[in-house]
């Protein structure tokens, strides 16, 4: 394997609420390599989404070291972190997180709007239309997300994660809201992306899809047991 693009050592996340401290993650050590397809599974509440948001620079760990392409994340400024999120990371959320007030087209255009180098309108327009075409949603471009079905929203969320051509794609339960036919289609898309070179890190409950990964991580209890093992490929 090549060098790791992400490296975590002793990552701990504690949520402090008024009533109690929640230890969502305890001492996670994890390296993800370029081009890998990692899947993370474990019971509800064990900290999968938390781990993913730390990986995607949406949250900071309470303790431990996390390096992305060799840079210590804790040292990044807000705006450096924003730039990395925008240019290197694509995030597909468990709950889609589309903006209801914007049309499908405007939703998927968001990552391009935040580029440091502005992309000419014609170029971005072409790209957005192609992406919508790929997931068969061109005819829905001007609809609002709440006018779409769950599966359609999921596809739009995927397109939004992909338009910026990220090198790392973080996916939280991509098939949780879909029937098996739609789920299969989504998984097929992700697999295709991975074989095209995108590093993929996916949380899933579904063992069928987990097995498609090149590496399976299992988080068992709120106390983390880290036992990464290679799946037989």
């Amino acid at each position: 394997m090549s060098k790791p693009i992400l490296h975590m050592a002793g990552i701990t996340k504690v949520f402090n609420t008024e009533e109690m401290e929640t230890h969502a993650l305890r001492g996670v050590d994890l390296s993800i390599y370029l081009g890998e397809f990692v899947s993370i599974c474990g019971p509800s509440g064990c900290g999968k989404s938390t781990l993913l948001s730390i990986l995607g620079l949406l949250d900071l760990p309470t303790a431990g070291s996390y390096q992305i392409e060799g840079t210590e994340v804790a040292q990044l400024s807000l705006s450096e972190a924003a730039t990395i999120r925008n240019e290197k990371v694509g995030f597909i959320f468990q709950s889609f997180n589309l903006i209801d007030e914007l049309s499908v087209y405007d939703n998927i255009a968001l990552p391009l709007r935040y580029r440091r180098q502005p992309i000419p309108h014609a170029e971005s327009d072409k790209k957005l239309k192609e992406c919508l075409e790929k997931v068969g949603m061109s005819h829905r471009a001007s609809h609002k997300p709440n006018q779409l079905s769950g599966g359609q929203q999921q596809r739009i969320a995927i397109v939004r994660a992909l338009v910026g051509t990220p090198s790392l794609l973080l996916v939280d339960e991509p098939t949780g809201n879909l029937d098996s036919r739609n789920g299969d289609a989504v998984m097929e898309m992700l697999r295709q992306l991975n074989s095209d070179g995108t590093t993929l890190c996916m949380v899933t409950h579904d063992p069928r899809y987990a097995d498609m990964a090149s590496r399976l991580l299992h988080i068992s209890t709120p106390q983390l047991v880290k036992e990464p093992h290679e799946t037989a490929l």
Partner: protein
Amino acid sequence: MIKTKDLSAALQSLNRVRRYSATIILTLGIALGALVTLFNLNYQLLAAPLLPYPDEDRLYVINGNLYQNKQLRLANNSQYPALVEIYKNDTFFESIALVYFWEDVIRNLTGSPRVNVSYVSPEYLQLTQAPLALGRQFNTDEGLDSRIPVAVISYQTWEQRFQRSPNVLEQSLQFGEVDFRIIGVTAKGFIEPQIYKQGRQTAVWLPWDFNDTQETHRNNWRGFLPFRMVTAKLKAGIDPDSASHELSTLMDAQDQAALAGRSSSIERSVEYRLTPFTDKILGDSTTRTLMVMGGTLVLLLIACANITNLILSRAAKQQRNMAIQVALGAHKKHIFFALLSEIGLLMLVAALLAILLTAVSSEALKVIAAEQISRLQELTLNWPTLLFALLCALFLAVFFATIVSRQINYRVLNQMLQSSGKGYGVQISPLIRKVLISSQVAMTCLLIVVSLQIFLHANRLINQPFGFPLDNVQVLTLNIGNLRSASAAERESYLKAIRQRLLTHPKVQNASLSLNTPISISRPLWTTSLSQDASRQNPVMAKTTVIDENYLSILGMPRVVGRHINAAGGGPAYQCRRVFR
């Protein structure tokens, strides 16, 4: 920077919260409208190219002041002969004019209207380069001692009394016994300098010779008369203070000469001061308008505190969207400009509303406040005012956007994105809430206290007892017309006859002849110097009027000592109401 994409997105999202948008636009539009109106007014008064007259910085009003034992005893009253002397002095002035503001009845028009009349020397209208709609101004042949009965009327008089008939120039106006031929009509746009009283507009200008000052006063240095003054354009390069000083010295010498031979222990001196047109015209109205502007500023601050609350609440509702944008790589500046475009649009519309309100309220001010505020006639929407309104809007937009974006905690926005939606990215800190609420309360209290003070003061004035019952007392103002030229005895018997006629009316209980009513605004009493002993020590300046024996009993005025004047009086008798020192 703000992109068109931001603007159209802002427009769309505001369209979804119309009530919120309308509340902000109305609240701010009205509060800002009040401030902008006052800005416009103060700009006009204080900063706008001052007066619409050529060389306005060299235009002065000259009035007399009387000092006794070095104390100012009488201000803005002049000796008639002194005014004429100054008028004839040509050392300091490029141009100089006499003017006397009065009112009289036009006897040959139906209804005998009482109008504002100004007796002027020919230079008066030239000083302000009064434009004409018809005819001509007075010329030098119609100057002092020419006694040519001509008149210039104002555009308004022409419109009101002659329906703008073009043959007005063939007509004449009768004042007293004299027919004045109309020779000119001032143009519609002419703004008369209101150097005597705010809001007073002359209807008819008549030659100085015809002013009603009695012959005995015309050469009398002892009388100090109001309403009469000199207006002058100083020669370029002459210092007004030294001109004032030299004129005063000259007039004082004349005054001393005229009074020579009178023994008096009072040291008396007269002063003739040059007061700039601007000071006379603005008077003290700028302090008032600036104070009101301060009030509107407080009002705007209260509105802003309210709006901050509204905007923060909306931001709290939008935090999920902001969190999504941040997750997708939006920087702080992206969020800020998105906020700015939304708030900026609201502020822009509010500013436009404010400008509209300013235009409307300025017109309203002209109608309701003409006598309280100077130069209202000239009031228009100035360019700097438009700029001011837009700058206010820009400033407020940046201010609100900054406040909101500072309330966003970018570190915890992520929590909004998890399906459970725990925590909040925008939390209005309790401190901010406290500051907002307490500042609103404090500013409202301040406004209430100040307006209560003003109200109580006004209320005291309005309800102040007159000191005598006025319920059944009516005032009848007589225009003595052609009696003006009659002898004093003739006048008296005529007035007494009128009184007798009045008494025959069943509803009239009693009637009195007097020169003045006790509380009179338009015609102040004259002022006489009284002293308690023959040596004329310690004199008092007393407001004086002439009354008959019925006057005091009609008004039920209490006597402190002595008796009322009786009909048999004959010789000079004084009734002192009370002398305050």
